């Protein structure tokens, strides 16, 4: 199972095995990782699963769709590496993925 490391804004790391096909957001919620809220449950409608994906992983995570880019308008402290983690689906190629969480989701 691909392993994903979630890094809280304070530096705390959570290493979690996420099944292929699940979203990075679900991996966090199912494993009670603090810092990702996922209010809308993965509809790409709430901007509370905002993460930063380091450039070396960006390509393997795929390009964000237009809706995701739009909803990111509502996220805080948006940077070029910002993504909504509910829109990143785990594949075997994402084994070892590291995502960083912002200081706030609301």
């Amino acid at each position, binding site marked *: 199972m691909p392993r994903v490391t979630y890094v809280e804004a304070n530096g705390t790391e959570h290493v979690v*095995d996420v*099944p292929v096909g699940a979203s990075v957001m679900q991996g966090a919620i*199912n494993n*009670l990782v*603090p810092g990702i*809220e996922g*209010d*809308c449950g993965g*509809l790409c*409608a*709430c*901007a*509370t699963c905002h993460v930063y994906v380091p450039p070396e992983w960006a390509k393997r995570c795929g390009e964000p769709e237009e809706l995701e880019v739009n*909803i*990111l*308008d*509502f*996220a*805080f*402290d*948006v*940077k070029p590496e910002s993504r909504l983690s509910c829109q990143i689906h785990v594949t075997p190629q994402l084994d070892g993925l590291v995502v960083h969480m912002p200081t706030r989701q*609301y």
Partner: protein
Amino acid sequence: MTEILSGAALVLLDALPEAMLIIDPDGRIRYLNRVATELLGHERGELEGEPVSRVIVPQSGQRIDTVAWLSRWAEDPNSPQLRYLTLTGQARSGQLLRLSVRVAKLDRPERLYLVTMRDVTAEQREHQDVKHAYLVISRILAIADDAIVNVDQDQRVTFFNRKAEALFGYRADEILGASLDRLLPSRYRAAHPDHIESFRRDKAPSRLMGERGEIAGLARSGEEIPLEASITKVFIEGEPTFSVHLRDIRERKAAERARIESEQRFRTVFDHAMEAIALLAPDGRVLELNRATSALLGGGADAVGNPFWMLPWWPRLHDERERENRQRAMRETVERCAAGEQIRMRAELVDAGGATHVIDFSLRPVRAGDDVVAIVAEGRDITALPAS
């Protein structure tokens, strides 16, 4: 605004219980109703003609273009995003407000957006507090030292913490929703629902399991694991959740077995030794006497617990002072041994029949680290040996 709204319409908007803004496609506020002035703390005249960004303010690092979103939502008033996205308003006092908005557009006499705003600051705060409290508690339960398995009324697993994963060999996502039966040895499966049902009806909110015998779980490997378990129930809106806290007692059982075996081995050696052996506490109290002691000297059943120098086998001297002197001497000998010294001496003891035995007698300290924790007194009957 009066150019597009008649007096009656203005009266109606002002009477609305919801805060309302009317803005134009350039994002200028054209009208705000009475509740909006109260919500934002502004006079109407201060805001009319001003950009909407005076009251709906992008926060740190937000790229949001409020007018673009309002027009987008106006085109799709049932957008799912309207349920989840809130805008951040700022009152005149500087206070930030979380605003749930609904938007409608008006095309005639000109394009305008009608925006209702509901202050959901407190609601959202409460929701977040509950969610965060849930997260804190859940994380604590997730890493608790006990395996915790929750099941619902139908005995479907609804929570399975890390220790449970390690104990049973399933990942939570493999077992959530499955029947509890998968974790029970087959011989328990038929009766288990009745046990749960009787606990559901029971007055006690929680209890130790296993009153009907030992508890065991079934790991994925097929291994049966002896467990200690307690169960607690929580009813939410009439629906029970049963939370079972399990502790793997394999190690404890193995340690218990090892202790019993070791005790048996010690007993065997102690009781089958040819020498008379007494085990003393460091203060000289007799803890145990072996069989050879009673075989040699007879009696002594009530010796345990008494000081070594008061045993019935020391010569019964009629001279009280002499007796006390000898007792004191023996007591000092024991104290020297308790301080770490090994002692060997000859002593005379009198058995229950009155016969005197010459004993080759030793006292040896038993150490644990630097401390003497016990004393072993050993005696061999050398009466029959020729004096050297």
